[in-house]
């Protein structure tokens, strides 16, 4: 009996009391809901996990400065290119940093940039990227260190176009592979980059580890090992942070913020994100897409719905003080956003006036026109906790002005399918955008109907304004603002929220800077203070 007890005690001590010590080096762990499968940029525009991880291993020619202004040549900081010069209105030349090397020791040259752009501009490899880069007519090299870009016309975002979408890849490892075989090549499993971190190992279904590139030409990373740990469930990820097993938690729900703040070893950082959530009005009848929508084709009804929504109150209820109501389809960090503009005001009386002007009459059963009730349905993905919460609030606010809204919560893939088929009255969309506002053309122009413009919104005046703003024909910011104001007046959607990216961070990490368009871009500058007292001032 005693022997059994001793054995049980020993086993318990081994398993419960014998927690493994963190290694002495500076190692951090970041849990993720989806593990990156092929963190190779440019060739694959897959899931964001791949893109974000790729930013630790591959440099762009230049990065956006903290102002995040994508127009002009001044709002950028050197990365793989140490400098650039404008030779004329359609020509830009980049001087590569001669210290830059691939992780296998081979120098980064202009040949790498040429090779990568050749692949990136091939529609057979990535149709979307090829379209984005279509304004580049030629990429050429001058020796090993200079790359020259020529554009088809003059426009303010030339430098952004040449730098943001493409991170150069190693030509010496990939040029001999046929384009269609790169996706299945061993390189995708263990990529060789040129950034502050190099690939170490990927344990499928468990973790992916990066190691510091000690020869990184811009400086030695402060953290030696970064582990991305797969934990699919949001509660499991939160528990890992609260228990101290991991150091950084991304995509924290606003409702979980108090739990993190209550833990002395942790702190919360919120950062504006490039996402906008909006109620997209279908202007075509979902039963017959050739016909206008019987209710929502009328702009006054759409405007009435927006006036009936107290968007600020809803945003506060769901995101507390972290999110804001966007100005049109523009996220908070977008440089064209005018913070002084408050957008369409909450005005239920005006909503009713507009409905009356549109021929609707209010009675005890709500609004009716020609015997038909004002009843609409809202499709939303139940996988989105935020949108599910908003949907309830929106239904209640519309009920207060007499509009009946049926909520149709759908499994993610079904919601996506119906959205693509234009099979909805109102769709609760969320768009993740690039730092450039020019992406608006994809969803809010007549030419995009049949593609991303699933609400079938078309106003040639907006098309013209966006064209002028993007190609610099008008007065830059003023033209962008005019386009936004026209879109808000047309009310193709009710723009509800621009959410933040909220992070829970262990205080042992110092110098923490997060970049809105690439969370981990500056991770190599972070530091770890093992054993140090929590930094209350951070």
């Amino acid at each position, binding site marked *: 009996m005693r022997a059994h007890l001793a054995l049980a005690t020993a086993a318990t001590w081994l398993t419960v009391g014998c927690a493994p010590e963190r290694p002495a080096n500076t190692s951090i762990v970041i849990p993720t809901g989806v593990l990156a499968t092929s963190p190779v940029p440019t060739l694959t525009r897959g899931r964001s996990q791949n893109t974000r991880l790729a930013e630790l291993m591959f440099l762009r020619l230049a990065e956006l400065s903290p102002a995040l202004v994508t127009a002009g040549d001044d709002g950028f900081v050197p990365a793989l290119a140490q400098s650039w010069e404008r030779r004329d209105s359609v020509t830009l030349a980049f001087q590569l940093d001669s210290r830059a090397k691939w992780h296998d020791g081979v120098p980064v040259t202009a040949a790498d940039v040429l090779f990568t752009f050749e692949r990136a501009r091939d529609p057979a490899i990535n149709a979307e990227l090829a379209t984005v880069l279509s304004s580049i007519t030629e990429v050429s090299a001058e020796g090993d260190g200079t790359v020259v870009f020529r554009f088809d016309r003059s426009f303010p975002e030339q430098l952004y176009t040449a730098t943001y979408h493409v991170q150069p890849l190693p030509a010496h490892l990939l040029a001999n592979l046929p384009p269609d075989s790169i996706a299945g090549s061993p390189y995708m499993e263990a990529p060789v980059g040129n950034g502050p971190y190099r690939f170490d190992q990927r344990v499928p279904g468990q973790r992916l580890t990066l190691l510091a590139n000690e020869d990184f030409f811009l400086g030695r990373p402060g953290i030696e090992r970064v582990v991305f740990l797969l934990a699919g469930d949001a509660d499991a990820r939160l528990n890992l942070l609260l228990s101290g*097993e991991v150091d950084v938690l991304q995509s924290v729900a606003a409702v979980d913020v108090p739990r993190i703040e209550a833990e002395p070893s942790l702190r919360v950082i919120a950062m504006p994100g490039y996402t906008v959530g909006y109620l997209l009005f279908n202007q075509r009848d979902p039963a017959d897409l050739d016909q206008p929508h019987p209710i929502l084709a009328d702009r006054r009804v759409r405007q009435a719905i927006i006036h009936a929504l107290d968007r600020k109150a809803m945003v506060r209820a769901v995101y507390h003080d972290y999110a804001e109501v966007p100005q049109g389809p523009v996220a908070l960090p977008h440089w064209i956003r005018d913070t002084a503009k408050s957008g369409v005001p909450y005005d239920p009386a005006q909503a009713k006036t507009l409905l009356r002007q549109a021929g609707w009459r209010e009675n005890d059963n709500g609004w009716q026109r020609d015997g038909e009730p004002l009843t609409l349905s809202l499709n939303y993905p139940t996988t989105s906790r935020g949108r599910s919460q908003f949907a309830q609030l929106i239904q209640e606010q519309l009920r207060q002005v007499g509009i009946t809204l049926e909520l149709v919560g759908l499994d993610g893939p079904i919601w996506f399918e119906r959205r693509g088929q234009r099979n909805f009255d109102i769709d609760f969309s969320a*768009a993740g955008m690039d730092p450039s506002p020019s992406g608006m053309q994809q969803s809010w122009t007549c030419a995009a109907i049949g*593609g991303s413009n699933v609400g079938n919104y078309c106003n040639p005046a907006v098309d013209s304004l966006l064209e002028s703003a993007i190609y610099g024909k008008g007065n830059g910011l003023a033209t962008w603002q005019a386009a936004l104001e026209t879109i808000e007046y047309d009310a193709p959607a009710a723009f509800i929220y621009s959410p933040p990216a909220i992070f829970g961070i262990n205080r042992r990490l110092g110098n923490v800077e997060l970049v809105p368009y690439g969370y981990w871009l500056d991770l190599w500058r972070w530091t770890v203070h093992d054993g140090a007292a929590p930094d209350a001032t951070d």
Partner: protein
Amino acid sequence: MSRWLLGRTVQAGGTFIVAVVLMFFVMRLSPGDPLARVVGERQISEAEYRQLQKRFGLDQPLAAQFGAFVSGIVRGDLGTSISHAPSSVNSLIRARLPASLLLGGTVLLINFTLGILIGVWQAVHRGERLDRWLSFLSLTGYALPSFWLGLVLAWIFGVHWHILPPAGMDSPAMAPDAPWLARSVDVLRHLILPAATLSIVTIAATIRYQRTAMIDALGQEYVRSARAKGLSVREVVWRHAWRNALFPVLTLFGLWLPLFVTGSVFVEAVFGWPGLGALTADAIGGRDYPLIMGTSILVSASVVAGTWFSDVLHMLLDPRVRLG
């Protein structure tokens, strides 16, 4: 006997094939776009969407997709996952199977040792206070939702007391050159909470089955004869009564064999356990057709194999089955 065995095997194989074919068509005919996860919140053009469809063979007619699936099965290739591209389904299953086997195996081991022991003890001591308490406790565990219990245990032991890791299968921060023993202990520490959760919510069935069968066996003539012959209680219980009270538990074991392979969706999710259950749930949520088929084949095979296994065991242990 061999004819009986052959018949059972052919029947199991047929069931498996029908199940797999049905799953293929039912899944593809159900609503939902498998590219939803790949696209996410990006705004993509029609051209990129078509390119993605082509990449995963979703632009092909249903018959052609089925042909490609069957030809892949013949080659042992389950295709490429849509959500986890470019990873193959084979590699994903290979990566996740060990974790499921470890968790499922541990739970089955606990259930069919501790569960049998408790069930037999309760039958022998039927009506005593401890018997009533054990019945109450095991049924309470059975009634608890596994995800709720998991969250509570993770919070108490992982977050509040910090004595066990609340999620994961091992400590990612552990030094890469840590010795084998330290790594094993680390995995064991991570295994405790998910295994305990699953065991608590499932062990009641084993206990109840065993207790009922044992009470029935203890009332049989041959047991009374054994007692009358003066055999010890241990001999009467384990050598005479228990062997005949084992059949219902064997049936249960066969039915639970899939747990050995798939673990539990909820428990794996709550504890971030990198097993097949979580992978399957993720695949279904994303309509990842190749991955759903891959995991479904595994689940179907384990269900059919479990049933076949319990049938064969019955036949071996009970002559009435093979002679009847």
